[in-house]
């Protein structure tokens, strides 16, 4: 199996090159037969890369430690689940996995366009095949072949780092990769539009669901990573503005911008060059993210090993694509002229444009902060770095502005909003927002930016709620349906729009949850058995934690444990007993001296009580000393409001995105004058 897999990897390179050539020649010469052959190579490469990936999984399952990759990430006693996910546990495997996903999406795109969009397909296939060739060349010639051998066979492998043996960490990279690779399809269609010269909004209509699919996976992938950090890393946070985290956020930001700006092109025929720019930027950022996590170019707590050869290959590739697209855009510039102009500053176009500007500005700021150590070293000769303080300072105002626009965008009229439109749609919601902010301020929430977020959040939720209510009521009246039925039909008839609103609700809830961060409570205390610590939640209740003692366990070969120290705590909330909690430290037998801290989290809808064992008397535990001082332990206690809302809102976001992506349904964009759901006013003529 492994030999077949390795062979398949080599064979796929000429097949992909052949496919790319056929596609471009077929496209230039209008030869349908060549294009058809090229499309078949897409399936062929998918089959070959599937074989190559199965071969790697096979080497893991059979403990073939003569392969460097298996020896580095597996061991005899590793659970089967993590042996299978070993395919994406490290650098070389995850590049192959990336390629596998991309081949899968390519095949899906070819298959679903068998009988339509034929004018694009030669160039779509050609572009996709060139990308596949690139990844194959990297895999085969840049020292990252997962089939590379050690030259000897170790008896056992190094084992997978215990921190990575976590459910969220297992699904986080593939989900992000699905998001990254799904975006190659919109990019390929954009390239096809540029190359074929069909530059109306057709390519956008074709790729709309692909964009959403990619965005959906990116969002979930990022949240899974946050969840892993929260549950596994033990510092109680979910986002650290680490370069690798930032790298996954960057394409998400530009994809979000793109998701909105394409609607302007569809309805108003504007922003054609801008959209080309965004699709290119987002695609390059997905490549950049893949490369950054794999090159270790920037200091980071969790990048993979340093590999400069691959850095140059990736940078060169990205540079070439950028240059090529720039040339194509300039060449096609006459066809990319806007069919309309912005008529008014106060209009939906304008709201969407500002949304785009702010998202791009955020992208720029995050990128600047992330690359600062590299840039400053290159230009000033000394490395300067910025931490979370920089990113929070810069991005919080942008976030609040975006939040505000989320309330404006859905109800402001296209082209030109009249005074009446503004009054009718915004007077009440703004009142609700101001009242919320004022109420919270007087209730004692005295953090300006947070209170602003809560107020604007209330404004947005009111706007969206009113839209749902108005739509449902109107439908119930016109169609004579019950409210529940009318609501269902309303959403199903225009899934993209209402699905989008549901996603907005999720984002508002998430932002509100983020904005409670200034109230996070944290104390650190060293306790002997029988002693208690107290922490007061920002909402007034007091938790009392009593340390009951440490139970230890040694040399458990079955579970790869050198030792394990479990601290048991009984917990009371305002005198009422809660279920006891336990947090522990472990040291594993392999990798040698590797440790792990298991946190205790009591999560409710209101707040999380988060306890970690910050320190135990390791020496005493190891020596198995039985005197009471060996039991002394240091704990970190935290109370964090609304953290569960973040995870819940990710679920709501998923539902909204699925509604928007579901096949079928009324998806034709309504003409500009009607698409504001009857709230738009007839635009006055002239300026």
């Amino acid at each position, binding site marked *: 199996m492994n030999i077949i897999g390795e062979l398949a990897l080599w064979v796929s390179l000429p097949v992909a090159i052949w496919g790319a050539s056929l596609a471009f020649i077929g496209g230039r010469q209008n030869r349908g037969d060549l294009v058809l052959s090229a499309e078949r190579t897409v399936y062929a490469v998918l089959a070959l890369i599937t074989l190559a990936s199965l071969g790697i999984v096979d080497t893991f399952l059979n403990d073939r430690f003569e392969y460097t990759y298996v020896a580095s990430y597996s061991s005899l006693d590793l659970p089967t689940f993590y042996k299978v996910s070993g395919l994406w546990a490290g650098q070389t495997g995850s590049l192959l996995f990336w390629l596998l996903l991309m081949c899968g999406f390519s095949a899906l795109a070819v298959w679903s366009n068998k009988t339509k969009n034929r004018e694009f397909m030669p160039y779509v296939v050609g572009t996709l095949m060139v990308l596949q060739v690139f990844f194959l060349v990297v895999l085969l010639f840049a020292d990252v072949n997962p089939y590379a051998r050690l030259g000897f066979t170790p008896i056992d492998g190094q084992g997978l780092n215990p921190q990575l043996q976590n459910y969220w960490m297992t699904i986080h990279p593939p989900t992000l990769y699905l998001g990254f690779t799904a975006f190659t399809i919109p990019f390929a269609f954009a390239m096809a539009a540029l190359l074929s010269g069909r530059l109306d909004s057709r390519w956008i209509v074709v790729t709309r669901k692909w964009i959403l699919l990619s965005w959906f996976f990116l969002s979930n992938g990022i949240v899974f990573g946050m969840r892993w950090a929260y549950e596994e890393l033990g510092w109680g946070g979910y986002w650290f503005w680490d370069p690798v985290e930032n790298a996954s956020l960057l394409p998400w930001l530009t994809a979000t911008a793109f998701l909105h700006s394409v609607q302007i092109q569809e309805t108003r025929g504007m922003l054609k060059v801008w959209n080309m720019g965004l699709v290119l930027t987002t695609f390059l950022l997905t490549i950049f993210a893949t490369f950054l996590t794999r090159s270790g170019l920037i200091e980071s707590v969790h990048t993979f090993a340093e590999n400069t050869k691959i850095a140059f290959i990736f940078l060169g590739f990205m540079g070439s694509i950028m240059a090529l697209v720039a040339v194509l855009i300039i060449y096609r510039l006459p066809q990319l002229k806007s069919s309309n102009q912005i008529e008014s500053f106060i209009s939906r176009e304008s709201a969407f444009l500002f949304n785009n500007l702010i998202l791009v500005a955020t992208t720029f700021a995050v990128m*600047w902060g992330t690359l600062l150590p590299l840039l400053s070293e290159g230009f000033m000769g000394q490395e300067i770095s910025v931490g979370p*303080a920089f990113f929070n300072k810069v991005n919080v105002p942008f976030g609040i502005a975006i939040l505000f626009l989320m309330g404006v965008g859905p109800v402001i009229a296209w082209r030109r909003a009249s005074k009446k439109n503004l009054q009718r749609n915004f007077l009440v919601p703004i009142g609700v927002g101001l009242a919320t902010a004022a109420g919270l301020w007087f209730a004692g929430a005295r953090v300006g930016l947070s209170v602003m977020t809560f107020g604007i959040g209330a404004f947005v939720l009111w706007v969206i709620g009113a839209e749902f209510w108005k739509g449902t009521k109107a439908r119930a009246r016109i169609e004579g349906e019950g409210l529940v039925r009318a609501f269902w039909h309303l959403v199903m008839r225009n899934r993209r729009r209402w699905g989008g609103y549901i996603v907005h609700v999720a984002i508002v809830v998430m932002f509100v949850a983020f904005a409670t961060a200034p109230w996070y409570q944290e104390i650190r205390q060293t306790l002997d058995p029988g002693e208690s610590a107290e922490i007061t939640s920002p909402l007034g209740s007091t938790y009392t934690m009593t340390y009951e003692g440490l139970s230890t366990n040694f040399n458990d070969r079955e579970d790869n444990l050198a030792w394990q120290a479990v601290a048991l705590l009984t917990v009371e909330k305002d005198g009422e007993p809660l279920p006891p909690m336990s947090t522990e430290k472990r040291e594993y037998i392999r990798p*040698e001296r590797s440790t792990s801290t298991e946190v205790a989290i009591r999560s409710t809808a209101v707040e999380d009580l988060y306890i970690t064992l910050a320190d135990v008397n390791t020496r005493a535990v190891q020596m198995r000393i039985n005197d009471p001082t060996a039991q002394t332990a240091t704990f970190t206690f935290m109370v964090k409001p609304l953290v569960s809302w973040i995870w819940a809102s990710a679920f709501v976001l998923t539902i909204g995105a699925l509604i928007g992506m579901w096949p079928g349904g009324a998806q034709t964009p309504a003409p500009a004058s009607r698409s504001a759901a009857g709230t738009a006013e007839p635009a006055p003529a002239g300026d």
Partner: protein
Amino acid sequence: MGSNSRFMIGLVGVAAVVTYLVWTGVSDTMTYFLTPSEYDARIEADPSFRQVGVRIGAILVPESYEKGAGELEHRFVVHDDDDPSVTMEVLYTGVLPDTFNDAPDMLTETVLEGRYDENGVFEATLLLTKCGSRYEASPESLDRGDEPAIT
């Protein structure tokens, strides 16, 4: 005034806000990110640099970890990535990350934030670690994979 020019003003406004936020953000929160050799050279050139808080990127010296006297105090030694002869004693106060590993085969990269105390010990308030060898196995360490870790 045409709405296009009004829009341009908006655009310039956003650009100005971005520039302002990024500029002040960097100058308020930036720290130097240095290797131990660079740090020593800076202090030699300008002794007052001792008082400046910096970020250091260095490699943990295997087997150098010792539990400090005080609560959550940890002592260890790091060396320069390019020049292993340049070392730095560290006193870190805080929770030790799980990836901190001073086993002989491990290559643990550390990022430290802090400054020297009067005895030339680097007092760190922040410690980030990255375990190199679990991602990039060296054949020697794999060779010993059969040896039991605890005997």
